[in-house]
């Protein structure tokens, strides 16, 4: 038993005595913590909803069709993420890299949409960080979500780089799976933010 455990550890130091992967468990712990992070930001937004004393109101500035398109992009990117993982598990590295790239591209499109949205708010609606409580809480909440997506895009692109460099194959599926966990989480958080900020009047 002890011998077996020792040799096992040499083969993969990432697997613990429960048989689970340390890194995957660590990512779940991080996501639990990140729930509290976004929970606090969303709570702040809700606490200040309707409390602004100047500046444009949410109804005046939101472009719901554009944001819905962004939301659809992000939701669809979860599918390509799953396809990337499935392809890698089948050892189809090139296909996996393509799906990872597609995921990153949709994430990047989402972020660019957000940049455009912020730009129109600032230049067409005079809504900035310091205009009102709405401006402050809106930009900080959605901005931190956008930062999470951007971080995810960089992560996915680095994985694509590893794949193109011949350094990613079937044995690394856990690494892609963990990136996927993060990606799906960011996606789910967007569903909450989209609903709370844009859809609930």
């Amino acid at each position, binding site marked *: 038993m002890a011998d077996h455990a020792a040799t096992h550890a040499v083969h993969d*130091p990432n697997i613990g005595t*429960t048989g689970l992967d*340390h890194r995957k*468990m660590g990512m779940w712990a991080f996501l639990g913590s990140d729930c509290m992070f976004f929970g606090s930001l969303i709570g702040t937004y809700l606490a200040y909803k309707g409390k602004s004393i100047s500046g444009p109101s949410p109804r005046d500035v939101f472009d719901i069709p554009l944001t819905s398109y962004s939301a659809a992009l992000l939701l669809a990117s979860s599918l390509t993420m799953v396809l990337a993982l499935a392809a890698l598990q089948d050892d189809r590295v090139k296909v996996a890299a393509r799906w990872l790239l597609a995921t990153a591209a949709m994430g990047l499109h989402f972020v660019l949409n957000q940049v455009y949205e912020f730009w129109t708010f600032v230049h067409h609606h005079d809504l900035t960080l310091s205009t009102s409580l709405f*401006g402050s809480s809106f930009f*900080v909440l959605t901005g931190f979500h956008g930062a999470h997506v951007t971080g995810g895009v960089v992560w996915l692109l680095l994985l694509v780089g590893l794949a193109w460099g011949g350094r990613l194959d079937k044995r690394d599926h856990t690494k892609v799976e963990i990136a996927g966990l993060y990606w799906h989480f960011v996606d789910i958080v967007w569903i909450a933010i989209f609903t709370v900020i844009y859809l609930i009047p």
Partner: protein
Amino acid sequence: MATPAAFMPGAKAEVPTFWGVIASWLITVDHKRIGILYGSSAFIFFLIAGIEGLIMRLQLARPDNNIVSAQTFNELFTMHGTTMIFLAIMPMSAAFFNYMIPLLIGARDVAFPRLNALSYWIFLSGGLLLHASFLFNAVPDGGWFGYANLTSSQFSPSHSIDFWMLGLQILGISSMLAGFNFLVTIINMRAPGMTLMRMPVFVWMSFVTQFLIVLAFPAITVALILLMFDRFFGTLFYAPAAGGDPLLWQHLFWIFGHPEVYILILPAMGIVSEVLPTFARKPLFGAPVVIYSGIMIGFFGFGVWSHHMFSVGMGPVADAAFSIATMLIAVPTGVKIFNWLGTLWGGSIRFRTPLYFSLGFIAMFTMGGLSGIMHASPPVDLQQTDTYFVVAHFHYVLFGGSVFGLFSGAYYWWPKITGKMLDERLGTVHFWLMMIGFNVTFFPQHYLGLIGMPRRIYTYAGDLGWTFWNLVSTIGAFTVALSFLVFIGNVIKTARSGQVAGPDPWDGRTLEWSIPSPPPVYNFARVPEVRDRDDLWLQKYGDGHEGAPRPKPAPVTAAEIAAIYMPPTSFWPILLAIAMAVMISGLLISMYQVIVGGLVTLLFMYKFAVEYHRPAGGNRH
């Protein structure tokens, strides 16, 4: 594994050079070394914060004193509180998490050794950034809980609050990274046979603490981000003129701040739960109940934050709810105290220094708990809040509780960590000086508070009736300081001529006493199989009531030791921590520094992530 590791039999012992030793500590990923780094840094910060406390007591020793100005006094209590909580008690607990958790669960390291090193270096950079404020004469002065909107640019235009805010943010990152690491370590690295209910109670309390850390710190992270945006980028979160509500800060801060209280006390409770059974030579009385109580405390800890805010006027419903929840939390705490007393009851007690400190913990923490129940009641709290009564209360739980518990652990595990026994006589002197000094310092503060002395005043008039007890309190504070000089003397004496401890000096009950002191780098030559919470005790004295000792296992072979995999050292943790510190401190200097620091941080994160990723066509490391 091409080159033989240094710990293997037959490996060449190189004579280490001075710089070689320094470098080996900078790039270490060994949980024991990181534990020592945490412990020694924390002790230095503890001394700094203690000196700040002494200066405050000198200033208050007599009325109308002018040793320090009002401004300096504000800086002193802010830095004293912030340093004690984030840079002394938390990292002292982290030192025990690092050093002891792998030993107690029969593991060879933590789940993420490099992340562990990264946590330490980020912690150190946060502490240094906070203390760099002294060099720039911009010492934080907004109190440890930095209430909005005193911290706004309007009322605190200098960089003082920036140092505090950024320092705390960095320390939070460090704590959360360590939290993820220890959660995974405790769940995933337990030796075969160690079910959750067979985990030593210190590990259990640490486990609950990690949950609190990873779930509570995001709230202060957000509170500090909002403050940072208010101060640097002109948002209005804490600006009443724009409709902003300063109470938002108070809620976010205390949603973190109350679980933080349990983050500070639960590890000490865990230590006491290890020390008492060892020195009473009995199993912990009702150990499962102690564990459940710890979980209850952690759970309820998230539902009581507003009892710090009774005086803001939240209305009767909120007051009643938070008051009841707060009183409820006294139940599991009280249960634990009875469990500890039950452990001592009928035991064959050996009075050694660790036991003295644990007994001190029980007595002092009970007193702090009782005054805590007093201000769980809103009407009573309105009388006591912002007075010295509250100062007395939280020093009874944090000093009388956490610090006594942590020093109990220090005396208990010192022989395991260094291989030498701390001197018993000096240890006893340390205990009694600290016990007497502590009570002389803080007990009169209950009375001072009740007769109306507010906290955080830098001086007072002579005709208020506060003079005598303030002088007594100051004398007590210097007695406490003397006790720590005795401790330092004890450490020096022990290092020079301490008695060699051997693997099991206390006739211990848990796995750490089954291996040499100090432990070899791989901890366990053979991963143990665990059958009970007090596994070593049962190995020595038999399973069940009349069993014989378990048969000795076969000796460990050189081949077994050669097969041990230990994570290699890495310089990326310290480089990454430096890059992050450069990026974050750039907010005080120049945006270019933030951008360059950010790009370097990203690069180093990538290097950190792929350090052991195989090259193209290679095999897994």
